[in-house]
């Protein structure tokens, strides 16, 4: 005796939402590729595309990490930039002090992990994530200045670290790391109980709590992932340029957030994917690259970027509204 009389036909639309996002992004990428390829033939050269993805790699890696925080419903981290800076500085200091490479990479990343964990614990306790990360970022930046005495830290590695310059199969190592991290995080989000928990928390943290999901653990882990990924950016920078200073990564926070948003991850959490975030970073990088090739004025470039980011968020908002109304 079923008494359910319900408006049907909704589920089909809802199910297609994730697909709609992917289609939207793919369409965006294709349009950019076609338009730019037609107007700037150099744009479509393999070298240039690789250079573009390489340019997107650092922002992309940090954005993929931050996606976890966004998915848990804790908006964004405003300490990504500073975490990357302090990791880079520690890494350069360690290399400069003659540590073996593995230690110079692992120890700073461990510090990044602690930084992320501390913020995660604060947030899991119920403190606002924006304020926590804003405050943490300011404090970390101050500490970074204190430990460097505002000097550039030289890694002094005689030969360029392979981590910075290797090109397996002709593709820069940063791109490989980027791709691998995206794949890993995709699997983690889809296939592990941690990934499921992250999405469920973002969907409704109260229900998640009452369902016995390990919220604290998942939130702390999300902050650790975001922090460690930012740290990876720092390490990659050092590997690339053999040095680090506090003014590296200026403006990184906004770039990373923009990538997450252009990827269409819902700012209120629960919905999004690291693949889309990565694509978001790449779309922005392609756009920047194209405008550089086309010799646009700096101001014009910013205006167009603003329009693209704005257009993307309006489009995603529209798709989301359509599929949930």
């Amino acid at each position: 005796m079923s008494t359910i009389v319900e408006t049907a036909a909704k589920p089909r639309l809802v199910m297609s939402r994730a697909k709609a996002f992917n289609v939207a992004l793919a369409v965006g990428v294709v349009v950019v590729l076609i338009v730019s390829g037609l107007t700037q033939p150099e744009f479509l050269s393999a070298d240039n595309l690789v250079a573009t993805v390489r340019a997107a790699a650092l922002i992309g890696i940090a954005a993929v990490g931050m996606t976890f925080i966004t998915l848990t419903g804790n908006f964004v981290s405003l300490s990504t930039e500073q975490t990357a800076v302090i990791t880079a500085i520690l890494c350069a200091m360690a290399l400069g002090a003659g540590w073996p490479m593995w230690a110079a990479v692992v120890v700073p990343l461990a510090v990044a992990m602690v930084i992320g964990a501390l913020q995660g614990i604060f947030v899991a306790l119920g403190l606002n994530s924006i304020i926590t990360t804003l405050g943490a970022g300011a404090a970390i930046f101050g500490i970074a200045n204190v430990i460097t005495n505002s000097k550039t830290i030289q890694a002094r590695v005689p030969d360029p670290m392979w981590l910075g310059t290797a090109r397996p199969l002709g593709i820069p190592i940063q791109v490989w790391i980027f791709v691998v991290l995206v794949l890993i995080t995709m699997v983690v989000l889809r296939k592990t109980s941690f990934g499921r928990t992250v999405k469920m928390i973002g969907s409704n943290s109260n229900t998640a709590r009452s369902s016995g999901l390990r919220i604290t653990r998942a939130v702390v882990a999300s902050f650790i992932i975001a922090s460690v990924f930012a740290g990876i950016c720092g390490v990659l920078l050092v590997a690339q340029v053999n040095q680090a200073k506090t003014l590296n990564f200026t403006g990184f926070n906004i770039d990373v957030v923009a990538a997450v948003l252009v990827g269409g991850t819902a700012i209120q959490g629960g919905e999004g994917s690291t693949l889309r975030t990565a694509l978001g970073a790449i779309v922005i990088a392609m756009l920047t690259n194209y405008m550089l090739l086309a010799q646009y004025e700096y101001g014009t470039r910013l205006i167009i970027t603003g329009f693209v980011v704005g257009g993307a968020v309006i489009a995603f908002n529209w798709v989301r509204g359509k599929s949930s109304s």
Partner: protein
Amino acid sequence: MTETGVSLLDMKNISKSYGHVQALQDVSFNLRSGEVMALLGENGAGKSTLVKLLSGLITPDSGSITLNGEPRTLGTPSAARAAGIAVVQQEFSLVPTLTIAENLFLGSGDVRGLWTGKRLANLARPLLDTVGLEDLDPRRFVSSLSVGELQLVEIARLMGRNAEIFILDEPTAALSDVEIVRVMQVVKRLTAMGRSVIYVTHRLGEVFQIADRATIFRNGRSLDPVPVSELTIDTLVERLLGRHLGEMYPPRAASLGAPRLEIKDLSTPGLSAPISLTARQGEIVGLAGQMGSGASSVLRSVMGISFTSSGTVHLDGTDITKANRQKAISMGVGYCSDDRKFDGIFQLQSVMKNLSSAAINRFSTAGWLSNSRERSLAGQVASKFAFDESRLPSNAGNLSGGNQQKVAVGKWLAISPKVLLVEEPTRGVDVGARAEIYRNLRTLADEGLTIIFASSDMAEVKGLSDTVMTFYRGHLIRVLPAGEITDQQMMLDVTHASVSSTPTTDAVNLSDEV
């Protein structure tokens, strides 16, 4: 109770469809001035569509609306307001951070310019007086009001906007009985002032108390209005369901198993004195009490949500007093709160993920999920709880209230629970879905599950439980087998009428809800 009132609102041959779903089909509805018209029907029968139509949120596909003899279209909320139709929201529309007076005039546009405390208070006073809130300071913050007071302030606000027709959408769903009495008195006062009330409810007892006539909706169609005086509970239920209800409540357990959950001298915030209880395998224990009686505190304490200050809790002999929520769940204790939207379901996730959410460990190995195991687990839960498996992929938020509640309760079956703790198992759920939930719970109990539920619905406690415990203000009043307690006694216990003399006889009759 003016049977002779002139026809105020006349809706004829209204149809409305969403896509290919026919929400209203050739519906007619009539309201006289100065009367209370009960609007009844199961969820999805078309009540809420009619309410939306009257409040101007949607427009009908066909049909006519006549107000005071003049044809009207109520295309927008403001047009509906201008026509004198006001909806007293089920979810309150008062802003907690504002004062009562500010709330009274918020959104009305009546008071322009400066909103100083004194000016608003003076304007607010007469409005509050009309709804019997003479002793309330208009400058108090709304956040400090009780739920019943909120409802009355809401009515006062609508009075201030010269509403002629009040639509009360399940006004008593979240009220204690004492507050219900106050709201009912105000409803009577409204009709005495010549205003008309459309009273939407699931609680049939209230129909007999307050309504003059009743219009029943069934599957998107309306039945002719009937004077309440010509109805009995049985005929009403029959009209409502289009069939005989038969037994709303399944038969009680024939025999009970060994003690499963033993609570000794438990004391926790919300309880004024320690309590003890023993629940057996296959037993359903009903904790009856109004809001704040401490009934739900017991459940929350067992679950490790609220702090247990003293006493012990044993599950099958194992001490789980100090267990936190995760531990309790892993031991086989499920808990469902009274607010499913808040912490019962994930509205934006599929039903399948909802059903499996409490049991992620059961379909994962070393942190890796298995989709096939998840599907089969969700399928098992769905079949156990009589849930249509084809709905597993839809978002839980798109289901009807009854089905959402089934998800919120049913998901606990995924952990193969030994004990299920439920607060208000059927709040905001229509009659048909209620019966289904009761039947499911009883079947589970017969299979050996122990269920403890807290409810302010006395009929539900009496009908569903094997054992009844009554609570009043943090005190356990009485423990009795359900068969041995009378409605009268329960109501007296939970309102403490035997000691204080506040509740009126009206309150007692409320328990004859289906």
